[in-house]
C-alpha cells in the first residue's frame, strides 16, 4: 500500500518555466525509495514540490488516501510528511534544544517534552550538548539534528534532500545507518541523493529522472547493474530504452 504517491507533477519556480514535466512516483510503507538522476534532472525540485515549497501547476500528490497537492508546508508536517532540506536545514542561531522545542510546538503540550526526550535518546550526541548553538555543529551533527527535528513529530513519511551532501564518507555512512533505523521503526523514506552507489545500497527501490521526466524505475538491486544508470552517471552505453513511471 502506498503511503506517498505523486502523479503527473508539473512544477517549477516560475509559472511558465516548468522544471518537472509530468513526473510521478510511489512510496510504500516501510520502504526507502531513492530519486536519482543527473544534475538538473529535477530531483530536488520534485521533493520540494511535494513538500509545498515549489508551486505545482498540474498533477496530484496523495499522502495515504488524502490528497495533499498544494497544501502549505506547515499543514503537510501536521499530516505526517516530514522534510529535511539539503542545506540550511537547522536554525543556526538557536540552540539544539530550541531547534527541537520549536518543532515540538505543533504537538499537544502534554506530548512535547516526551517527544524531545525521545529524540535525545535516539541521538545521544545531541543530548550531550543541548544548549550548544546549532551553527557550531559539524555537518554530520547538523544532519542528525535536522533528522531529529523532522522525526520528532512522528511523520509517516520522511523526505530528505541529499542527506550526504558535504559529509565525509564515514559520516555519510553513519547518516545512512540512521536512516535504516528510521525505516525499521516504521517510517517510509523518500531520498534524493547524488551518491548513486550509496543510495542504491540503501534504498529498496529507485526512480531515475532526467530533464524533468521519469526515465526509469525499479528495485535498487536491479538498477545497480542497469545500463541506463551506467549511461546517465558513468558515461556507459545505454542498452535499454527509457520507460514511463510505473
Amino acid at each position, binding site marked *: 500500500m502506498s503511503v506517498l504517491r505523486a502523479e503527473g507533477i508539473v512544477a517549477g519556480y516560475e509559472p511558465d518555466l516548468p522544471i518537472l514535466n509530468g513526473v510521478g512516483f510511489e512510496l510504500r510503507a516501510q520502504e526507502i525509495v531513492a530519486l536519482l538522476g543527473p544534475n538538473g534532472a529535477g530531483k530536488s525540485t520534485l521533493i520540494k514540490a511535494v*513538500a*509545498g*515549497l515549489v508551486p505545482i501547476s498540474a498533477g496530484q500528490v496523495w499522502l495515504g488516501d488524502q490528497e495533499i497537492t498544494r497544501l*502549505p*508546508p*506547515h499543514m*503537510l*508536517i*501536521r499530516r505526517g510528511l516530514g*522534510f529535511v*532540506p539539503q542545506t*540550511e*536545514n*537547522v*536554525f*543556526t*542561531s*538557536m540552540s539544539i534544544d*530550541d531547534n527541537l*522545542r*520549536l*518543532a515540538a*510546538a*505543533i504537538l499537544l503540550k502534554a506530548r512535547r517534552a516526551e517527544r524531545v526526550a525521545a529524540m535525545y535518546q535516539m541521538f545521544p550526541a545531541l543530548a550531550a550538548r543541548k544548549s550548544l548553538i546549532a*551553527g557550531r555543529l559539524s555537518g554530520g551533527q547538523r544532519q542528525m539534528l535536522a533528522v531529529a*527535528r523532522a522525526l520528532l*513529530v512522528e511523520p509517516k513519511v520522511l523526505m530528505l534532500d541529499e542527506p550526504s551532501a558535504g559529509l565525509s564518507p564515514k559520516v555519510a555512512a553513519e547518516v545512512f545507518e540512521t536512516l535504516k533505523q528510521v525505516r525499521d521503526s516504521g517510517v517510509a523514506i523518500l531520498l534524493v541523493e547524488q551518491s548513486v552507489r550509496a543510495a542504491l545500497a540503501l534504498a529498496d527501490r529507485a526512480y531515475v529522472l532526467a530533464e524533468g521526466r521519469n526515465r526509469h524505475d525499479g528495485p535498487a538491486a536491479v538498477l545497480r547493474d542497469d545500463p541506463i544508470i551506467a549511461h546517465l552517471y558513468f558515461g556507459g552505453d545505454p542498452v535499454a530504452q527509457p520507460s514511463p513511471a510505473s
Partner: protein
Amino acid sequence: MNLQFLADGLLIGAMVGLGAIGVTLTYSILGFANFVHGEFIAWGAYACLVIAGGIGLGVGMDIAPVGPFSIGWAVLIAGIIAMAFTGCLALALDWLLFSRLRKHGNAIVLVMASFGASMALRALLEFLFSSEPAYFSHELQIAVPIGFGIRVTPDQMLMLALTLVLVVGMHLLITRTTIGRSMRAVSENPSLAAVAGIDVAGVIRKTWLIGGALACASGIVAGITVQIRPYMGFDLLLPMFAAAILGGIGSVPGAVIGGLIVGLAESMAVQFVGAEYRAAIAFLLLIAVLLVRPAGLFGKREA
C-alpha cells in the same frame, strides 16, 4: 558637569527603543525597511487621546490625574485599547498593501510602498486632527531632584518604568515562548520554518500586531512626556532606524540598547555641542559603531 542629559537621553532612548523593536522585527522577518512604522507611532498616540476622551465622556470614568502624574486611569486603559487598535491598523495595512506586494518578492517595491503609505497616513492624520499639537493633559508637572543634579518629572519616571516592563516582556516573549521561537525561526529561514511546521503567514501577522502595538506605546510615551503631533512619528523614524541598525537587525535587546545610545548621544549633543547638531552626533556615532561592528552590536554576522 550637569548630568541632566542622562535623564533626558534615557527618556528619548526609551521612546526610540520601543519604536525600534517594531522596526527591527519587521525588517528581520519581512525583509524590508518599513517607513510606515513612524505613522503607527502618531496614529497610536492620537488613538489613545481619542479613546481616553471617549472613556471620560462616554463611560464617565474619572479622567483626573492620579497621584503626582499628569494623567489618570482613563489614559492607561485607553493606551491598552489603542495598542490593540494600532496593531490591527498595522495588520490591515499588511492585508491591504504589503501582503499583495510580498508575492512579487521585491524588497524595493515594498520600501517605496511603505514610503507612500506613510505619507498618506500622515496626511490623513493632519486632515483629521490638524497640525496643531495636542496634549494628554495640561496639568503642570514639577520635576523633582533625584540626585547628582538630575531632575525628572513623575510622568517621565512612570514612562521609563512602563518602557522597562514592555521591553522585558518583549525579551521574554522572544526568547522563552513558542511564538518568540517561531518569530526567530521565520527571521532566520522562512522556508525551513515552514517545513518545521510553523505557519509563516501567522507569524507575519503576529509581527505586525506586536510591532504596531509597541509603536503605539512609543507614541503614548512621547505624547505624555512631550506632545502629540501628526509628524511625531516621522521625526522619530530616523533615530528608530539608527537604533535598530546600531543594535543589530533582528535583536530586541539590541534595538532597545541602540535606542538608549541614540537618545543619550542626542541629549549629550544638545548639552555639549548644540541642539542643531543632535541628529548629526547620533548618526556619527552610528557610523563609528558600524565601522567596527558592521552587523551592529548584537547582530549576527553573515556566514
